[in-house]
């Protein structure tokens, strides 16, 4: 059984180190905007909820791609073949969580760093874990995966997930 990335918002401090290291590893510079992980921050309520790619079964991005650029690899990770990407943006629209986006005309998304995610190593509070599934972790992810958005920008979709989790955890 392969490992998966999970988020426990209760442990997230909103430090954003995951986004810094992600952009550094994938893009060679520090730029949270183009990181493959994002953090929805609600400092007024003392709450933060990272948005991650869930590597969905029947991934909407995969299904939407007209160019055959998106596939599922041997580790069950949904990956983009940059050479095949035609920058149509259909995957961006299809993802209900705002977790695939265009960077320099190529669709980019979380690839688990090839099996050793940099964000997890950088997460001191332990909000991000990379583990084989357990009933608790599946439940945690299931609650987050329910927060789909049909439309809106990727940022709007992430904000939807973040604000629903905020109300679930804090109200």
């Amino acid at each position, binding site marked *: 059984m392969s490992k998966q990335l999970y988020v426990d918002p*209760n442990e997230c*401090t*909103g*430090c*954003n*180190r995951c986004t*810094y*290291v992600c*952009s*550094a*590893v994938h*893009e*060679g*510079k*520090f*730029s*949270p*905007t*183009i990181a493959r992980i994002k953090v*929805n*921050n609600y*400092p*007024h309520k*003392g*709450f933060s909820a990272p948005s991650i790619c869930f590597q969905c079964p029947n991934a909407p991005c995969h299904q939407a791609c007209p160019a055959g650029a998106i596939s599922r690899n041997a580790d069950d990770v949904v990956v983009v073949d940059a050479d095949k990407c035609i920058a149509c943006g259909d995957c961006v629209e299809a993802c209900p969580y705002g977790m695939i986006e265009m960077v320099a005309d190529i669709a980019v998304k979380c690839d688990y760093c090839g099996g050793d995610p940099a964000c997890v190593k*950088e997460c*001191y*509070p332990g909000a991000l874990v990379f583990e084989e599934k357990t009933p608790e972790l599946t439940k945690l992810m299931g609650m987050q995966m329910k927060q789909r958005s049909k439309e809106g*920008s990727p*940022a*709007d979709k*992430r*904000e939807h997930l*973040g604000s629903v989790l905020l109300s679930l955890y804090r109200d």
Partner: protein
Amino acid sequence: MNLYAGKVLVVDLTKREITTEPLRQEWIRDYWGSWGMALRYYWEAVAPQVDPLSADNAIVIMTGPFSGTLVPLTSRLSLVSKSPHTGTIFTSNVGGAFGPELKYAGYDGLIIKGASDAPVYLKIVDDQVTLEDATPIMGKGIFATEKFMEKGVGEAGAKTLAIGPAGEKLITYSMIGSESYRQFGRGGTGALFGSKNLKGVVCKGSGAVTVADMPKFIERVTHHKTENLFTEDNLWANTDGTAVLVDVTNELGIHPTRNYSGGINEHKNIVNSDVIKAAKIADRACAGCPLACGKFTKIGDAEIEGPEYETLCLGGSNCEINDLEAIIKFNRVCDDLGIDTMSCGSIIGMAMELTESGRHDFGIRFGDGEEYLKLVEEIASLSTERGRDLAMGAKKLAEKYHAADVSMEVKGLEMPAYEPRGNYGMGLAYATSERGACHLRAFPIFNETPFGIDALVEEVVESQNFNGIKWSMCFCDFWGSINTDITAELLTIGLGEEVTAAELDKSGERIWTLSKMFNLYNGFGLADDSLPEKILKNPLKNGPNAGKTFDSKDFTEALSRYYKKRDWDEQGEPRAAKLAELGLDHI
């Protein structure tokens, strides 16, 4: 440009002109960033005699070179201006995430000049920078103002700086808040914005910070994080937060109680870090900080990130408010209305003492949690006579009521929560700080000889110089073991140019000395490097240091040795040779 954005945003509110300037390259290796760079820009922008609340004054806000990178604890942001509270040069710094966001938007810093004739806020979305109408949020608190401005950007995640009604009313210890519970806290930064009719700044940036050698940069940052940051020196910030200082300062007998009458609080267990941890619902971090010292607490309906140590003591023990829920409420209302909790707690403590001693009835006595919460509102709104009195600050309040003997300030800035009669080094640090009584320039509370003048002079001078560079890199105080060797190594890898620890050490002294020169030009001399009368004359009432004063003879001796150590003359003026050595002979 590596590590830097390479640009500074200049906003002239009088002319409503927004321009960008290239970052002054010739200053980088003397001043580096944040405090140092902001100070150098400020020096260039105004005459030292400028009226702080006039349109002629400028506000310079600068990030550090590591802001927005993976170097931990570097997201702080410095503001330099002349303080309306002290009349001195003043540096204040804030945590949170505004600093990195400004860098990602493409700016190392922001210079605000002039004054708007109508209420505005500044909106920065990368290179789209506009002044927006702030009329709908005038009179509103910081929380609502931040929300309003963030909405105006149209996308979640914008970072904000805002003032509340206290800043609008030019109260000289009003502050600028960010992310609700973080502040450019001291010295009246809120009034600086208020005097310019500037209600806030909102920023969203989508750019990047680059380094010369990314794999090596990540490798060395990770090494220093693991080997140096994640050690006993610093991990208290993660496990306990600043509330740990309640027990520490009580043990040392330097925990101000009852308007600096005593050095221990018998009821400390009501507000120490165990209690904070029990009330905690989350750990909170500034951008890029793995330690997350912020403890988000909730008691009943009252919730806040904090309270931090200074508030727990000055708004608690020093007013004999031994009730965490009341302190949380006090903290929250100050954070929203835009008032510095430290100055406010100290001034209320002073009013309590004046009332109890029968010298003037402010209608508030030690331990009166209800009146104390009312008073904050009265101060922020200037709605009652006592509110207007207390809004003046300790120094002016003392002048009005002939109460210098109970006024706890240096150069007009109310003292932090470390008692100098139990540690002479802390007294020397307060007396010689460029902004008045401040604990962020030297913090010798752990010195093995708390009354040994030579060792303390040494530590105070070294710390002040080191903090000059530390705050210019924007390293948070809670990376207590950071040093210029690590800093130089990371700058070298990031910039792709050799930087040495020795040049950073020299920069620290340069920054400290330039601040001193600004104050000298404003007439702050030997007599102003002083301590409150109570510290010099009244014996401390309880705890291990009971009976102690820091008498004038010892204090004068310490100050004189301090000047000598700095190679300043007997009046505390840097000698020409020292200025030349630091490259400040043009000043």
